[in-house]
């Protein structure tokens, strides 16, 4: 089709002619104007960072906010070049000084050696017109002094910038997370969305997971300036859009209270609302102040990062602990389910149980005598539950545990550990299998899983997915429905009776949790660890007994008996909730009642 080829040639020639025409337009017609723009470097970018969205607790208390501070920046093209022979134009600009000179003059104002300033400048500079931050924060006084001396400091500017602020310090720190400069792996992707290398982006927790909502959209303008750096013309502008507020379900005051009660004892606590799965408190001790990462306080950061107790680790969702006796609640439920025991049948406790050729001791070596289910829960009798576990066998135990969410992630929005159950392929001896019934051996649980589990006991058999973000901007987030365990109501009534006795009977293992203000149900656990004599102490429970509004799990890492500190913390949480009924209802409901 030669004629078609000729058409083809006409189109291409016409296209090339257009290009030449356009070139003439740019270079010959408008050349002088563009030459002026290029020669004088009269284009400047004025960035306008977007204020990051706030993070608030269930009552609207600020957990993370944005606060304006002053920083000192250097504008790369404002300095006279050291290689001036090369660029005739830039060398002729009057009133400029070299970068080294400018930094030397700035140094006394900010107390940073010039070499350090130069080093920071090199690390920060990105685009030619974009100011590079050389001192991240100066006081208002310093800012004023530098601004006054601006004639001696060409190329140096003081700008107000929004920085992240965590008004409540370490409260719910693991949940909130922290911000920092983007990592090298994440940056290429973030760059496409207008993130600059010096911008703060979420590095962990809610700050990271909800980065897209919190970030907003930074704006700025491109302006043409005259030789005194005054704006002549606006070449383009984009408004900054503030990030959205993320509202959490947690009560910051409750989080702080729990953290205070832990003191120096490492551990974790999770408080949930059994009817919805809302997380009211999530505490991991030791904790950290997320503001450290904003201030870049090197010594303190170094301490936090190298602390052998790993303050950055969220023990509540990532820590996996041997459950010990709190698992007896599930063992009892499974056994009732299988009709292996009835609530009234007593089993004898001789102080030990013989399984195969192994003899397992009850913690009470003298034996508890004949005990019913309720009594066995109250005194946490090992013999009773070892016997029950032996009758159940490994398969039924494992199936029941799995159904209750063990060995599986809870669906926590920030990601959590699944805990551990022996896989089906695993061959366990009879003794090892039976030990699972009392929460020892090859079984691990996160405090969050424990809270969800005890929440299911409190709400009559519904495993709720724990959720913590209730609103993003104007959009309310609906909790997902729970999954039914499919066990009859009576099963949970029996467990509840036992748990009430644990706390309220004088000889109950959780008697320290007894409160005159609110009726609490609970179960303690004291799980042996690899450190002899330093067991993990657990307390799980809920209150008030008749209409539970909170369920909680507390673990004290190597903290001794669950009847001690964990029970006391459980009591403190329940009393707080009883004293602040509005703390657990949402503000709207409180207003309505």
């Amino acid at each position, binding site marked *: 089709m030669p004629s078609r080829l000729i058409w*083809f040639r006409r189109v291409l*020639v016409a296209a*090339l002619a257009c290009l030449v025409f356009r*070139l003439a337009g740019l*270079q010959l017609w408008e050349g002088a104007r563009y030459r002026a723009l290029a020669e004088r*470097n009269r284009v400047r970018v004025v960035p306008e960072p977007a204020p990051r969205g706030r993070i608030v607790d269930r009552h609207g208390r600020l957990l993370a906010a944005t606060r304006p501070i002053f920083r000192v920046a250097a504008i790369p093209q404002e300095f006279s070049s050291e290689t001036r022979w090369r660029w005739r134009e830039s060398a002729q600009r009057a009133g400029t000084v070299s970068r080294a000179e400018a930094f030397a003059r700035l140094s006394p104002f900010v107390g940073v050696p010039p070499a350090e300033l130069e080093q920071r400048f090199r690390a920060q500079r990105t685009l030619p017109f974009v100011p590079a931050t050389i001192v991240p924060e100066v006081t208002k006084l310093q800012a004023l002094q530098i601004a006054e001396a601006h004639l001696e400091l060409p190329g140096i500017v003081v700008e107000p910038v929004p920085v992240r602020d965590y008004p409540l310090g370490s409260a719910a720190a693991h949940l909130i997370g922290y911000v920092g400069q983007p990592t090298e792996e994440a940056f290429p992707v973030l*760059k496409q*969305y207008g993130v600059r290398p010096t911008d703060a982006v979420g590095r962990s927790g809610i700050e990271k997971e909800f980065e897209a909502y919190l970030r907003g959209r930074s704006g700025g*303008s491109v302006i043409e300036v005259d030789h005194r750096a005054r704006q002549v013309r606006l070449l383009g502008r984009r408004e900054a859009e503030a990030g959205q507020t993320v509202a959490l379900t947690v009560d910051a005051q409750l989080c702080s209270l729990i953290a205070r009660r832990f003191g120096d004892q490492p551990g974790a606590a999770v408080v949930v609302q059994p009817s919805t799965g809302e997380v009211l408190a999530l505490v991991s001790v030791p904790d950290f102040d997320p503001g450290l990462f904003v201030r870049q306080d090197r010594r303190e950061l170094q301490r936090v990062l190298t602390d052998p107790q790993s303050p950055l680790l969220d023990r509540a969702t990532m820590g996996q602990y041997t459950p010990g006796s709190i698992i007896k609640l599930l063992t009892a439920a499974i056994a009732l389910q299988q009709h292996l025991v009835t609530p009234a049948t007593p089993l004898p406790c001789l102080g030990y149980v013989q399984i195969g050729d192994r003899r397992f001791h009850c913690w009470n070596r003298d034996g508890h005598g004949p005990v019913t289910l309720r009594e066995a829960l109250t005194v946490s009798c090992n013999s009773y539950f070892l016997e029950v576990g032996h009758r159940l066998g490994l398969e039924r135990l494992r199936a029941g545990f799995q159904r209750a969410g063990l060995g599986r992630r809870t669906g926590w929005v920030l990601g959590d550990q699944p805990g551990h159950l022996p896989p089906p392929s695993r061959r366990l001896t009879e003794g090892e299998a039976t030990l699972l019934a009392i929460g020892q051996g090859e079984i691990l649980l996160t405090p969050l899983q424990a809270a969800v589990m005890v929440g299911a006991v409190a709400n009559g058999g519904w495993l709720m997915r724990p959720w913590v973000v209730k609103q993003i901007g104007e959009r309310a987030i609906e909790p997902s429905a729970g999954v039914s365990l499919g066990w009859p109501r009576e099963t949970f009534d029996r467990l509840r009776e036992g748990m009430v006795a644990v706390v309220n009977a004088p000889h109950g293992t959780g008697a320290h949790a007894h409160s005159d203000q609110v009726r609490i149900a609970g179960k303690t656990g004291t799980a042996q660890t690899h450190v002899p004599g330093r067991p993990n102490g657990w307390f799980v429970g809920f209150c008030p007994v008749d209409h539970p509004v909170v369920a909680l799990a507390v673990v004290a890492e190597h903290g001794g008996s669950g009847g001690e500190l964990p029970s006391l913390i459980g009591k403190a949480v329940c009393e707080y909730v009883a004293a602040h009924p509005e703390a657990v209802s949402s503000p709207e409901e409180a207003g309505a009642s």
Partner: protein
Amino acid sequence: MRKIPWDMPLLLAAGALSCISLIALASAAATLNPSLVWRQAVWVGVGMGVAWLMASVPYPKWLDLAPVWYAGAVGLLVIVFIAGTMKLGATRWLTIVGFSLQPSECAKLAVAFLLARSLGHRSAPLSWRDLAGSALVAGLPAVLIFLQPDLGSSSILLAMWLGVVWVAGIAPKQLLLLGIAAAAVTPIGWHALKEFQRLRLLAFINPHADPLGAGYTIIQSQIAIGSGGFWGRGWLSGTQSQLNFLPERHADFLFSVIGEEWGWWGAVLVVACIGCVIWRALAIALRNSESQGRLLAAALVSWLGYQAVINIAMVMGMVPVVGIPLPFVSYGGSAMVMTWTAVGLLQSIHRFGTRF
């Protein structure tokens, strides 16, 4: 048989472009990475070697290999998904023993081969069936490249397909219907784009709407070219280029450096050389009476012509910044070797084709 010599104007124009590329790159890379020039020179050499090889073998032999080329290129594109290295937020490169290979470049040649082969013996006007089949040939790699995501390179395959079916004899009615269909699916395509690609397209419509992101590049590139005037600001003396105002100035925006430092005459010289390459390539196609060879030449012209026009238009702010390099000029090993391979193939069509 009398031995037919090479088409000298084509060869000289391509060679001139490569020389201009090296000189401009020496300036653009001076404050960037001076070693780029030597690497580019090596790639020009490799490309010329491959071109010589392509030109010494009759092109029907190459066409026989078309399915193998094609399968290989598509295979490479699939591998990119699995083992590609992350660069600039998009997966476009494969690293093989230390060399970064851009499989989308290989795909261009493979598509040209297979289109020419499959439509070569069809009589005009083309049946819908032929159109669909050829669309699939170009579409499969185009989709794989689009997903990388590399909008620019996948549009090159589309342009090549259009060029070939036009020359092969698509009926004007068919072309019209296809145009209407394309307009209808455009809104769907908009949703398939990544957010940064949408921003780029919007920035093209109004560069000042996003002066910090995509619009920044266009504004700076226009300033660079415009400030060149007639005589240019001199080699190594363009402030826009030397002071880092132009991002990607060694690659997609090398033409802006030429525009700034060499001025109007330099820019027009580049356009003229490209015009010469296109003119001679079309002359080769016109002289050839054998339809596969003619279609292959047409495919290569569509590819080179489209890339050249879009790249230059892009740096002058006439079309969106989509990441298409300027053939023979922009820095890039795979692209340089592949464009010279195209020159070699054109020479082979010139030398071994049957003539009217």
